[in-house]
């Protein structure tokens, strides 16, 4: 094994365009994903601001109905397929997962690079819809409306189809990596919960994504060759499309939220310096949710024409999946109990998540009640609910993860004061944007409406003001993160005092090969009480933990570390 020269790390050990474009390093691939999904988030976010601006008052504010309908559709497609689905797994999963496992890379580094390019190609194909006709109707693309509009839909479906392969290949890669490449001593019970959640997510990605591939392919065939599958005019069944669509898209909700659970678990453990309460429950319930998530798709269709019996069964299973999620929230809160809580900016996002995601969860329970859903279905109540889950869950967790791993990724600290201000703006802006939507939705304001009755103006205006505060917070984050790269303070090895391998066994930023020697793991990811020697000199740990930890624990059932299959 060749040791890198001092001062060299994965960012600077080789230079030039080709060293990035053709890299097999999971860290560089993670960084490139980060740039790509950030651009998607920026574009989707600007569209969201325009959509909210149009809704500031009834009637035309800044754009006509066709422009509005396409704006909210594009916002949704970008945010769901190009941002949220890849955000945590492809960025943080790629960067962090192999290091947390004590591996040199993922199992299939070339496949990993291919995933990135497939994702980029898919995104470009989807964006070509913009110059090839209109795309409206929301990200659900219900037939037969979606096949009655222009050819833009062909590009979007083709793009989603292609991006799906990126998702499948990333999932496959992570599953194999977790099974085969854990460091000696890193047993399943010692795995960081981030790994458990990415592992559960990967299972869903591999099993569910083919279904959206099949669905958009059928939609594509219907549109391109007039084969009757979903369009009643051609002899098809539009409700069938909804079954296919949600068979993927409900599990996809777990693709979006499970990685967030992982990030929050790591943050709660590290910043409470305490074992994550109910570790086994949190770990295994993620896997259980991954499977149960396949059995609840029909709760999106209580009023769509599926049989009443199906609706009843789907409602019941929806509750079964709600309970473990609720217990997880209690576990995260309980982690702080008798812990040592430090409110650094990543932890602020974890705390925020407990608030916003809980609202998303409880309103999900309200929506799961059959008779209530009849009233609330396709209103702003649903819009608010899924933004509390997707943004209040996934995006808030992603921001927490970003603030947590940023020093490791780039070796620079951002401005903590600005970070706290931004966290406050995001929290306040987010709730001001989306909470009023619950109220107007319950009052009966339908979603995907360009225009609305004057009675809803107050709530729409509040929501739009909120979007400005939220945008200010997010742009502030962009500003100080970029600034930190230019003149940020040098980050230490382990500024948060975390116990996972990316903090205890590698340099900041990590070496090109991650580790000079294969780490040997002797304690669980949150066994802070077994690592007291690390904290003797205060909160920030400044030395690697290479010499053993003084505990009597020995590696057990150590899997043999495999070299990357490259």
């Amino acid at each position, binding site marked *: 094994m060749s040791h890198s020269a001092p001062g060299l790390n994965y960012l600077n050990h080789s230079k030039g365009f080709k060293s990035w474009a053709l890299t097999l390093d999971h860290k560089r691939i993670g960084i490139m994903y980060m740039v790509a999904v950030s651009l998607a988030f920026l574009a989707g976010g600007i569209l969201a601001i325009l959509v909210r601006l149009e809704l500031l008052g009834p009637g035309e504010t800044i754009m006509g109905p066709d422009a509005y309908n396409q704006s909210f559709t594009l916002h949704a497609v970008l945010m769901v397929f190009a941002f949220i689905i890849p955000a945590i797994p492809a960025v943080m999963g790629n960067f962090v997962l192999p290091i947390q496992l004590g591996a040199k890379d993922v199992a299939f580094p070339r496949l990993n690079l291919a995933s990135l390019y497939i994702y980029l190609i898919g995104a470009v194909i989807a964006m070509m819809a913009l110059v090839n006709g209109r795309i409206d109707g929301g990200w659900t693309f219900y037939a037969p409306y979606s096949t009655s*509009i222009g050819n833009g839909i062909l590009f979007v479906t083709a793009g989603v189809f292609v991006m799906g392969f990126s998702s499948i290949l990333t999932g496959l890669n992570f599953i194999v990596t977790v099974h085969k490449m854990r460091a000696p001593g890193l047993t399943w019970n010692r795995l960081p919960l981030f790994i458990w959640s990415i592992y559960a997510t990967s299972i869903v990605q591999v099993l569910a994504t083919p279904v959206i591939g099949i669905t958009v392919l059928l939609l594509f065939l219907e549109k391109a060759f007039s084969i009757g599958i979903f369009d009643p005019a051609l002899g098809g069944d539009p409700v069938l499309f909804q079954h296919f669509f949600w068979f993927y898209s409900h599990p996809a909700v777990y693709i979006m939220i499970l990685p967030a659970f992982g990030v929050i678990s790591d943050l709660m453990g590290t910043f409470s310096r305490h074992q994550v309460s109910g570790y086994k429950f949190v770990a295994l319930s993620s896997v259980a949710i991954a499977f149960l998530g396949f059995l609840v798709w029909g709760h999106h269709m209580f*009023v769509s024409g599926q049989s*009443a019996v199906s609706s009843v069964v789907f409602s019941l299973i929806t509750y079964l999946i709600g309970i473990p999620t*609720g217990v997880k929230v209690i576990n995260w809160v309980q982690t702080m109990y008798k*812990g*040592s809580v430090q409110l650094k900016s990543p932890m602020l996002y974890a705390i925020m998540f407990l608030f916003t995601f809980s609202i998303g969860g*409880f309103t999900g329970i309200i929506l799961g009640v059959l008779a209530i859903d009849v009233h609330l279905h396709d209103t702003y109540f649903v819009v608010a609910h899924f933004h509390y889950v997707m943004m209040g869950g996934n995006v808030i967790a992603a921001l927490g993860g970003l603030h947590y791993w940023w020093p490791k990724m780039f070796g620079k600290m951002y401005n903590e004061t600005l970070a706290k201000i931004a966290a406050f703006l995001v929290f306040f802006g987010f709730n001001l944007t989306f909470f009023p939507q619950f109220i107007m939705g319950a*009052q009966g304001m339908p979603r995907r409406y360009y225009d609305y009755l004057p009675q809803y103006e107050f709530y729409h205006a509040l929501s739009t003001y909120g979007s400005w505060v939220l945008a200010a917070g997010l742009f502030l984050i962009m500003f100080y993160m970029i600034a930190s790269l230019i003149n940020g303070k040098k980050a230490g090895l382990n500024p948060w005092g975390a116990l996972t391998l990316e903090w205890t066994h590698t340099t900041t930023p990590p070496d090109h090969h991650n580790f000079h020697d294969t780490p040997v793991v002797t304690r669980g990811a949150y066994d802070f009480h077994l690592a007291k020697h690390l904290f003797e000199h205060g909160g920030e740990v400044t030395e690697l933990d290479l010499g053993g930890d003084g505990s009597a624990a020995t590696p057990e059932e150590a899997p043999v570390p495999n070299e990357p299959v490259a």
Partner: protein
Amino acid sequence: MGENGSVWLPDPGTTLAGEVDSLFWFVFWASTIMFAMVVLAKVYFMVKYKRANESDVPEPVEESKVLEAVWIVVPTILVLIVFTWGFDVFVKLYSAPPDSYEINVRAQQWSWEFSYNEGATSYTELYVPVGRPVKLNMTSADVLHSFFVPAFRVKHDIIPNRYTSVWFQAEEAGEYTIHCTEYCGTQHSGMNATVVAVSEEDFATWIAEQSQDLPPAILGQQVFAQCQACHSVDGSPGIGPTMQGLYGMERPLADGSTVVADEDYLLESIINPMAKIAEGYQPVMPAGFSALSQKQLDGLIAYIKTLE
């Protein structure tokens, strides 16, 4: 909070709506209380266990099996209660009484057509008798739509080539908004109508009046309600051209030619809207109007001819 309605829910217009609301409030308050407990515990722990000394390393806590069982069992019982309750009301919401008064509903981009058994047809207003169950048999002429009356807490998707239904029994005379809640294109948000609930006697009078043969231009004016989302009758701009002064004019077309807007042109533009596109407009008119009856078409043309 008002007497019946509140910040959260509109005034209930049916007895069943009241039942939905009771369920809503139960879940709402149960959720709010549990949410408040989570947030309070969170804030308390944040403050109480704030890191005092940088080298503190707390010992793990023995987890209480009893406590864990409590927060698995209690929420499970609660959700099973709301599931059963929701199931019960759901069945009522979709089980129309056998003696319901039936009205056929045809949805199309971006208008409604309500046909009554007595022969009457209405477009922007759905007349119903108070105190009598009304069942709507709904179908769509083109894409998916959804029938939603917030005050009645009823909603169901409307699907082409298939009947779906909702039922309700208005308790008080009044007007209640109808929304389309399944995205259906450009004017989706304009696809609204009103339930007009009137007494049995007023309903009988109205239906008798409406079921007579109307003069073509009056019938046409009623049918034109389906066109108003896009076409004005007073010269104001819209998605499609105004009808004012259209009849008999030299109409410039998108391909540069012109056509005289006579009866044949009007008929063709209604039943085959893509044949000739007026200059300055997009080819976005739905095709569903070809399903209008000859009488309705005659009426429409007669009405348009009066718009000078």
